[in-house]
């Protein structure tokens, strides 16, 4: 195209701390960060399994190591992040799962409730195995 050159466009730079400007952005960044703590729990579980496989002495050392205040603090923080992670995706489920039953759409609340129910059942089953088994 001929004629006068186009005036310069202005693109506002994205500030480093853009995610502090809005609650939803902050929750989003925290939830993304939660994946690090999910990974940590996987590592922790693997270490536990490895210690159990190595025998009673190793498992007792693992338990002693886990009793350190900084380990308890880390695992508490990790638990909070994992809960944030879980709640987000459970509450998202009905928007991704559009289920029709006998021609009628299943209510979103039912799908969320089903997720929490399954969570409770699995937790109860795991607790039973650990405490009774």
């Amino acid at each position, binding site marked *: 195209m001929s004629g006068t050159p186009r*005036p*310069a*466009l*202005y*693109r*506002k730079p*994205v500030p480093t701390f*853009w*995610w502090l*400007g*809005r609650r*939803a*952005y902050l929750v*989003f960044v925290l939830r*993304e960060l939660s994946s690090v703590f999910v990974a940590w729990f996987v590592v922790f579980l693997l270490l536990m399994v490895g210690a159990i496989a190595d025998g009673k002495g190793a498992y007792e050392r693992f338990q002693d190591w886990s009793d350190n205040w900084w380990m308890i603090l880390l695992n508490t923080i990790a638990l909070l992040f994992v809960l944030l992670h879980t709640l*987000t995706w459970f509450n*998202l489920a009905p*928007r*991704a*799962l*559009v289920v029709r039953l006998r*021609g009628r*759409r299943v209510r979103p609340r039912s799908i969320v409730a089903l997720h929490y129910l399954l969570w409770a059942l699995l937790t109860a089953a795991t607790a039973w195995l650990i405490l009774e088994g």
Partner: protein
Amino acid sequence: MTDRITLQVARYRPEQETEPTWQAYEVPLRKEWTVLDGLNHIKDHIDGTLSYRWSCRMGICGSCGMTVNGEPRLTCSAFLTDSAPGPVRVEPLANFPVIRDLVVEIGDFMNKLTEVKPWIIRDEHKPLDEGEYLQTPDEMDEYKQYSMCINCMLCYSACPVYALDPGFVGPAAVALAQRYNLDPRDEGAADRRDVLSSAEGVWACTLVGECTTACPKGVDPAGAIQRYKLTAATQSLKDLLWPRGAR
């Protein structure tokens, strides 16, 4: 209640400045006036050089999207009285390059719209004498929400992923693609798949959810994206297990 209110408007005149500046205008505060009415008053009576887009004034054309007090809004639907006693901060839509004042460059959005082929695609159109394609109310309900999109770009403005990764196809485009994917008259889902299933398609979305919050038409673009993620994952699994199956 005072009968006047101040509009703090972002001005960008590329011939004379490299960054936007603020300019204050005082306009009448009438009960039924929207921000757009305020801007029109400025244009008509105070400063004819102020530039912005608008059209229908009733929330169906999607032209007058701007950032009002930090929130993406249709200015025809944002009442001045809701922001009394002011001032009302009016800026161009975030995440788009600014051409002038409150006018943004929307070419990127237009290109993305075209990429997702938002029209009914059929292998063969049946002859006119066979009449229209029939569709039950339930079939229409499946996609109707996504058909309410007015292409106002508020969802792109609210989306931090689009801000950080302009290549992201974006919420409205995916919602419109879903509008056709879910339409029983359409046979083009496979044609849209490459764009939607790409890294810059639905997988760029990390579910902030602000697109749905910003949407003035209740479209739920975040839901459309999550729903298509499930579709894309399911289809990929099918392709893996039955490679020769119909796409």
